[in-house]
């Protein structure tokens, strides 16, 4: 039997959120004056100024290095997350669960992992990859 019981709350939350949003729009539709869409009203709102051009314009290439550096830290998070979730168990163990805790070396291992990555961070910082170029 697959247990997805705890995720039923997530589904319920999403459904509830959609319902609240729909209800808000439905109530607003009852009270607001009738919408008469015109070309001017359909424009993108840019603080009152008329929007020029398309939103999908060409981005500057300098954003790309930020994206790549972000991706590296993104992958780091994937390694840190399971460690953080089970850290207390890994160090101290639990009497109810039969497994051998690793002890303080769980912390050391993560520091070695992060220490190697700090080199990369320091390099990126010194080269100014994290600054606006």
């Amino acid at each position, binding site marked *: 039997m697959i247990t997805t019981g705890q995720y039923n709350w997530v589904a319920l939350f999403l459904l509830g959120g959609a319902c609240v949003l729909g209800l808000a729009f439905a109530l607003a539709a009852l009270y607001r004056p009738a919408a008469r869409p015109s070309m001017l009203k359909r424009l993108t709102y840019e603080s009152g100024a008329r929007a020029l051009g398309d939103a*999908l314009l060409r981005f500057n290439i300098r954003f790309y290095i930020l994206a790549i*550096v972000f991706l590296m830290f993104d992958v780091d998070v994937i390694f840190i*997350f399971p460690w953080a979730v089970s850290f207390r168990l890994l160090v101290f163990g639990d009497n109810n*669960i039969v497994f051998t805790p690793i002890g303080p070396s769980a912390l050391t291992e993560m520091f070695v*992992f992060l220490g190697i990555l700090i080199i990369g961070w320091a390099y990126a910082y010194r080269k100014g990859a994290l600054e606006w170029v």
Partner: protein
Amino acid sequence: MATPVVIFFSYLLVAGLLVGVSSLILLAIARFRPYRRFLATLAVLGFVAFVWGMCALTQPGYRLLVCYFWLFTAAVVGGGVGCVTMRNVFHAALMLILSLLGVAGYFILVNAEFLAMVQVIIYIGGIMVLFLFGIMVSQNIIGTQLKQNTPQSPWAAICAGVLFMVMFFTGLFMTLKPTLTVTPDVLGNNTGSVGWSLMATYALPFEVASVLLLMAMLGAIILVRKD
């Protein structure tokens, strides 16, 4: 066994599947583009009929699970079809994100929460961001209306069909003879068990992975920056 209710829902299921799939196929063909709103409505109606029949035919305890499964399947298939039919390449990438989100839902259904999180963070947060950046920094494909039909399309469709049949029959025989047994998690949750095996069993590969990440990061910075 074959009560009128079961027969009715079986017909509903099959009819919904046929209508939905045929309207999706018609949606992918450029000639039927003027009717795409009608075809999309038909596809959604077929999907609802299919899920309704599927839920009515399963055991009461599994109905919610079946609903989730077909909802995620709709996201995966709809995202995939949208990805290969959208005229705007940016919208196609967004549809691919929808498809990947559906796969993350599958992972949750099979109790692999950690994989679901990896799917969202790495695929959607990382790789799709790179995809979108790649689209946004290239001048010529922004805002242009792509034509996604090429002379290779029929061959691609045949290849996809063959692949689908292989996977379909594999899945069919796997459900007939379930050999996959799930070992219970030591720590009670999936993510914690992954952390434990990273720290205990695979400690050295874990540290080596950081060197790999370091090389990737330095390489990216060196390649992108001129100095």
